[in-house]
């Protein structure tokens, strides 16, 4: 029975452009190198089957994805959408709680959407006068956003709270609009992060046995 012989050709992450095919340890794999050359794609870590078919399509490009992830994170920090607290969350993720970040963030989405709905229904109410209640919601929103590291959302919430403290309904409405907007941005970006992370995990998790 034919079993595909896979060679892992790694392009070092530091220098993705240059294709350096590490020589397989086993000499008898050498003949396959020729095939590899044709299957070259820079920046990818790709296993190559005996037949020469690049298996990078399998998603074994964890490095690339990690780079993408870092790039996106840096971008979000730069924009102020996230801050160091998010990094702390990442540090809390370890073997004992492998999905910590995504769990927390999912809870956050759930709670935040609830809060946003409450806030909007409060403000849309024509006879609205209970600013204290709004303040309570906002306090929770501020607390959870800051625990996540959602800096921009948190700042908008703080401004919202200030407007609420002054019983400024128009200001509150404006702040709510802005808050919903910022929240959407955050959610989209976090989703993107998670997708990349997921792909990376998949890619990194795939292990192809070196078959002889």
């Amino acid at each position, binding site marked *: 029975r034919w079993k595909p012989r896979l060679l892992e050709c790694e392009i070092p992450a530091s220098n993705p452009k240059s294709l350096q095919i590490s020589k397989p340890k086993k000499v008898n794999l050498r003949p396959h190198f020729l095939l590899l050359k044709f299957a070259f794609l820079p920046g990818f870590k790709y296993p190559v089957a005996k037949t020469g078919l690049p298996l990078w399509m399998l998603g074994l490009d964890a490095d690339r994805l990690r780079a993408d992830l870092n790039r996106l994170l840096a971008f979000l920090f730069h924009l102020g959408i996230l801050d160091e*607290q998010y990094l*702390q*969350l990442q*540090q*809390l993720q370890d073997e004992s*709680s492998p999905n*910590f970040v995504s*769990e*927390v963030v999912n*809870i*956050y989405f759930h*709670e935040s959407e609830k809060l946003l709905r409450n806030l909007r229904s409060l403000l849309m109410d024509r006879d609205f006068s209970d600013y204290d209640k709004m303040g*309570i919601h906002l*306090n*929770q929103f*501020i*607390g*959870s956003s*800051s*625990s*996540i*590291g959602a800096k921009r959302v948190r700042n908008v919430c703080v401004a919202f709270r200030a407007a609420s403290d002054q019983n400024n309904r*128009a200001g509150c409405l404006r702040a709510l609009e802005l808050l919903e907007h910022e929240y959407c941005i955050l959610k989209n970006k976090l989703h993107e992060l998670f997708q990349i992370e997921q792909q990376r995990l998949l890619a990194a998790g795939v292990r192809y046995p070196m078959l002889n």
Partner: protein
Amino acid sequence: MTMEEKLGGSNGEDGGRDRFPIGMRVLAVDDDPICLKVLENLLRKCQYHVTTTNQAITALKMLRENRNRYDLVISDVNMPDMDGFKLLELVGLEMDLPVIMLSAHSDTKLVMKGITHGACDYLLKPVRIEELKNIWQHVVRKKKPDSKDQINASNQDKSRGGTGETGPTSSSSDQKVSKKRKDQSEDEDEEGDDNGHEDPSTQKKSRVVWSVELHRKFVSAVNQLGLEKAVPKKILDLMNVDGLTRENVASHLQKYRLYLKRLSSVATQQANMVAALGSKDPSYLRMGSLDGFGDFRTLTGPGRISSASLSSYQPGGLFGRLNSSAALSLRGISSGVIQSGHSQTLNNPINGFGKIQPAVVPANQNQNGTLFQGIPTSINQLSQNKPTNHFGEFNRCNDPNAFGVATNFQDARVMVGGSSNTLPVSSGNPLLLQSNTQQTQHSGGAFGNQPSSLGVTSLNQEPFDMNVRGSSNFLDHGRCSENWQSAVQLSSFPSNALSASETFSHEQLPSNNLQESISWTSSHLSGSPLDLSSSMANPANLEDSRGNISQVGLNNNVIQNIDYTTKQQWGDSRHDYNGNMNNSFSRGDSLVPASGPMMDQSNVISDKMNDVSLFSQFSGDSTYVVPHLDGEKSAFDTKSRSNDDFLFETKPQNGFNQNSFEPLENIMMSMIKSDQNNETPLMDGEFGFDAYSLGSCI
């Protein structure tokens, strides 16, 4: 490891010291699931032993079950089922555990509250791991004094009793007590050295858990004895519980007293808050309004007179009014009344047309401020940012303004008639004032002499655009100059209010008419003087003769003001506004007319209705918060129908109004300047007034 070490460490201060922070048992309470989860993981990362719950009641239950199971409690401040501070207190009282507060709100008051309630620390969200790494210090700190409890048991009695009521925080009081203990122990040391030193290490005092039952017994004992007389020894005897030492009772009593004190202070605080609530609003409003309005607010000018009228306003009432007026938005006048800053409602301006923003009278307030507030609002529309201060000040102008207005009116008419008087009004508005005064001097009665009046009118004619400006000048002038000058300014105002004069002229074109109009006005004025005087609450400012004149002037002013305001208002509200304006004017501030006229001139002429309302206002409508347009109009009508026609012919010139905002400012400025220049205020005024009355006699 953890349990024993914990106990050993806490009691012996040695034992598991090295490993103490590790395995410290923390109870975390927070209703926000995200924060709770993050906190839990952070604490785990610090190698603490964590128990979490999202309900304060559950936390209390767990703590009461076995107090010894936990070393530290971290609790959020805002929780739905129980206030975080309350939980803090209960835990401190019953279990004597260190509690750390957690909140997203960094308000100083909350932090203070936390400390006074006995919190060991107050953390802000997001909690960082560095902060959590240090929280074990609170556990140690709490444990330390206890370990010294054993020392100097006998000596503690006196000190204990004395230190029943100590500092705000239990920890500080503990420290004080422990300090005392130390002092006493020092005394003791000489006698019982070994005991003192060895006690902590040898004695393993098991901590007393103040269960609910125990606490109840304690409380009943205290109540039996009377809070003041409750002494630890007696309480201990009453409680009759085994294993309870006097020290335990003493420390518990201390905490209990703090707790009660806190309760009472909270109650009083709340009472104060409630009491202060009413007063708070106005100030709040005031602030709001001040911001919102900007300049026109100050329109509430007629300072002097208004003082009387103002006194009638209660801020609270005004506030209420303000709200309603705000709602109306058109009721600028009402807002004007609100001077006290209820303008807040007004602040939200009404971007609608003609929203009259209450001219919030500046804090330093013109006495008459309120009255004219209405006016400014209309103006505000146009130029919200325009400083209405001028106007306000204008309002202040008492009689003089009124007078001035009246004269202006007349003058305008005269001018229309083509009178050839060349009023010395040399320089725009300010000149008007001056010229006016001069005129009055000459003629001994502005109205009496056509020429003089003409002069005035000529002045008036000047800058049509200047009207607004003039009015502004007036306003300023009014402010600056006391009665007379302001009056003068008013006269100049008409000239400024080109529109007003224009309209005026339209109607009055024929010189005959002028005469008539003049007489009419004068008669009207004289007719209205009563009203004015009534409306003008400041008889003091005006002498009788003057009063009439001022009244007349007032009318004019009012009219003018109204007009102005109407002008300011775009569209519909105008009429209402005028009414309001009138209201504000009639408040009895002579000043109002002064300021009013400036603005109103254009308005007045243009807006008949306004006029009516204005006059009606004068008829002594003191509360003009709410535009009583209808009623007033009728009143007005009866009074001076002719005036209406005369004054309010043309439609308010919206365009003008809008522009007038700016020019108004200029006018005001110039007016102020002229004011300052004019040094003949009172005398002239008086003179003029007399003349005026003469004229009215015509």
